[in-house]
């Protein structure tokens, strides 16, 4: 999110960009009420506190849950863009029961199952068009990170409440 704000490649940050991102995230931390881990938690927090904006990490699924409890919320993609990913089924080379796996995939691709996915989880499916996005949306499909460990460690520290300038990661 910081990289997008900076206009940098969100999956490949250089040292300076990291530093800037950490600073931005600390500033963000100081500005937010709290962080959440699950969509349910976000719903609960929304109900218990005065919250205007939620970073909808869980996307349409989360929106659906919030709407379910009566929240007057909408889902927007920032101008800076948003990260996106697809859930996929993958067959490995060593798959033992290929036929069964294929049957399962065929099953999940049935209209009834796909509709149920959308209906229950609020997720888009591959059978029916959702119509929630348009071409102007800035979508960054997930890519491998330059340094997962580092990112994880930094975020852990930021979340724990470390202050800027205390660490110099690189």
């Amino acid at each position: 999110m910081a990289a997008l704000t900076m206009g940098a490649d969100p999956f490949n940050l250089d040292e300076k960009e990291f530093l800037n991102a950490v600073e931005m995230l600390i500033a963000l931390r100081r500005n937010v009420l709290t962080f959440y881990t699950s969509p349910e938690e976000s719903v609960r927090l929304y109900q218990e506190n005065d919250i205007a904006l939620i970073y909808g990490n869980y996307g349409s699924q989360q929106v659906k849950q919030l709407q379910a409890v009566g929240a007057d919320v909408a889902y927007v993609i920032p101008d800076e863009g948003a990260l996106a990913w697809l859930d996929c089924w993958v067959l490995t080379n060593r798959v033992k029961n290929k036929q069964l796996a294929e049957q399962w995939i065929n099953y999940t691709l049935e209209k009834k199952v796909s509709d149920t996915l959308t209906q229950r989880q609020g997720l888009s499916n591959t059978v029916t068009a959702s119509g929630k996005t348009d071409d102007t949306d800035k979508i960054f499909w997930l890519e491998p990170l330059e340094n997962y460990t580092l990112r994880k460690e930094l975020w852990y520290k930021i979340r724990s409440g470390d202050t800027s300038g205390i660490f110099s990661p690189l």
Partner: protein
Amino acid sequence: MNFSIGTKLGILLSLLGIFFIAITGYYAYNQSRMLLIKAAEEKLLTANHVLAQRFSNSIDSISKKVLFLASLNILKESALNEQAKLSDDFSDNAHFLTDIFSNLMYSYPEFSQIRYIDANNYGKELLRVDRVETGIKVVEKNLQEKNHYPYVYKTLKLSSGQIYLSSINFNREYGTHLAEGKPTIRIASPVTSQKGKTIGVIVINVDLNNLFFLLSYELPESIQAVLTNQSGDYLIHPDSEKVFGFEKGRRMLIQDDIQSISSFYEGNGKQLILDTNIGPQAKHRFVSTFLKIPFGYQKDNRFLVLGLMTPTERVLEGSQILGRDIINLIILFSILSILVSLFLSRILAKPINDMAISVRNYETGKRLIDLPTGRKDEIGFLARNFSTLTQQINQQIDALEKNRTILLNNEKQLSEAQHIAKLASWEWHSMSDKLSVSNELEDIIGKKLYDLESLFKIIRPDVRVRVKQEFAQAFKYKHRFHITYQIMNLNEEIRHLRMLGEIVYDGDGAPIGMLGSIQDVTREQTYIVQLQGLRLEAEKANQSKTEFLANMSHELRTPLHAILSFAQFGLTRKENITEDKLSSYFQMIQTSGERLLELLSGLLDISKLEAGKLEIKFIRKNFLEVVDDCLKEQQSLFLEQKLKIQFNHSEAFCFAEFDSLRIAQVISNLIANAINASIKGQTIYIDVQCRQTLDDNEVLLFSIRDEGVGIPEDETVTIFDKFVQSSKTKTGAGGTGLGLAICRQIIVLHGGKIWADNDPDGGAIFFFSLPLERSERHQIGNKSLQPEETNSPRG
């Protein structure tokens, strides 16, 4: 298999006993299981309550410590940190506070962290004491901003004296403390200045695992504890994989393991007791209790759920021991009941068996021994009845025995009588056609008979039909059956049986068979036949005598009449007749007298012969000489009648032993007959075979044949009887009728035979044979004969 009543009773009693013991045992076992489960439930519930109470108490206790810290005046007064800078005063106070924090940490091992956090400066930590591996550490560097954590931003909204209880989750806060990554409860309270402004937050982090370990260390090994939050997420669970699933992106809910518990979480119930299968596969059964532990302020309606579970198997371990004990008891009592039953059955069956043996060994005429007649129960009654019964039997047998002896004697006598009389009894039943006959019949006919048909079979065929008819008639018309004579054939012998029969009736008067006797009357019949023969002979003899007398009187009267007539003629006519005439009268008288004399001589001879008083003098002599002599004597007659004589003989000499005088009498007689039968010019043939075999004897055979009229066929035998003359000779030939009778007697006395036959060419042939040697019989026979002189008969 046959069982005695005693055994049956014993088995029944044993089975009954075992059945009741088993029922009782099963009931006890079942009840014990129920009680054990009940007890376990109660035990668990109690433990649960205690544990929950301890937990609440601990939380309360910690809360009080938080409040105590938050209320410290040092903190209130030191709320000066407007610029996030500690005053020197506070620096001293800080040492004092960290000492308090540290001491508390030492005293309460479940505390992982105690902090004082600034209400400003993004929730900067002002004081922080961590539990680290080496002990308690006062953190002075890298203090962090915690504003975004609920224990800060929520507590800051509380008023003084209020407590914030965090939800329980992993401590994800970076640091060097031991609590990092551990389930943690944060208990916090705001610190307010004396002006009432909230200036900071006191937070005590409690390590849930440590806390829980401390609370539950007394729990037995078999009891497992689980703790969940309000949603059902496992916080404490024996399987560490299950806890804090929501922190790992995968929720582990108790509702997934125990389906029936959902309503408990959603409802108002405070406690739940379950005896159910738990786990994803519901493999194991547990007895479990669950309690809601209020968490935080009552208005928030927050709670945790504490559950205690123990495997039902373990609970029922006691019952298994009890079950084994019960089975042992059942076996023991079964054996006991079998023994008691055996004993009982023996008590019951022994006297019965004894009685049975006694009755089995009972011999007629003797008393039953060893009967328990002295007993006063049913068995004694039975025994006395047996005793009485046998006495009656004995009496009846005695009477029967007497009757039987009498009957046997009678039967024996009858049998003997029957045997002597050759009298058999028979009995026939019409329904079965079964015939029973007494042994005597077997003696009579030589075999046993079993039915009527075989009786009929041995009857002579010509009589059989009549016997069968009469038998059937007798049975049909119910009258006596009486076959007076009956001829049966057996062993090639002819026996005469007399069969008598009476109808036998049943109780209703219907005929069911016949009863009767069969008697061998063969001898009787033989006598009758013999008697009849004798009577016939006697009658015949009588008739012969009558005829003889008639003949005699006739034969005697004729010459006597002639003598008397001619004598009277002579007397009356002697004056008037010539001398010649008178002479012829005398001649007639003489002839008649001679004839009379001849007749009387013959009669005398035959009388002697028939009376056996004539002596035969056997002398060995040439028979041919005797024949020659006879022919010479008769030569004048041959010449007179102009008859030719032809005499042939097989040999020159024919010696035999005979009475020549008597045999000559026979030959002369036969020659005289032949002459009488012949007419002028005819020839008489005489033939003598000196050695001829006749009836296996060597004999001398004499035959004489004439050429006369012959003898009628039916007279060839009777001609030898007395006073019998051939019907062809009677008229003209004359004669006494005694000649051939005398001849026969003489020849018979010699042991020979005499017979007559007709020659096919005409004329009669007379044969006689003489044995060459005297047989023994005749020698003996002759000695008894009285020697007597006789005249030689003629004619």
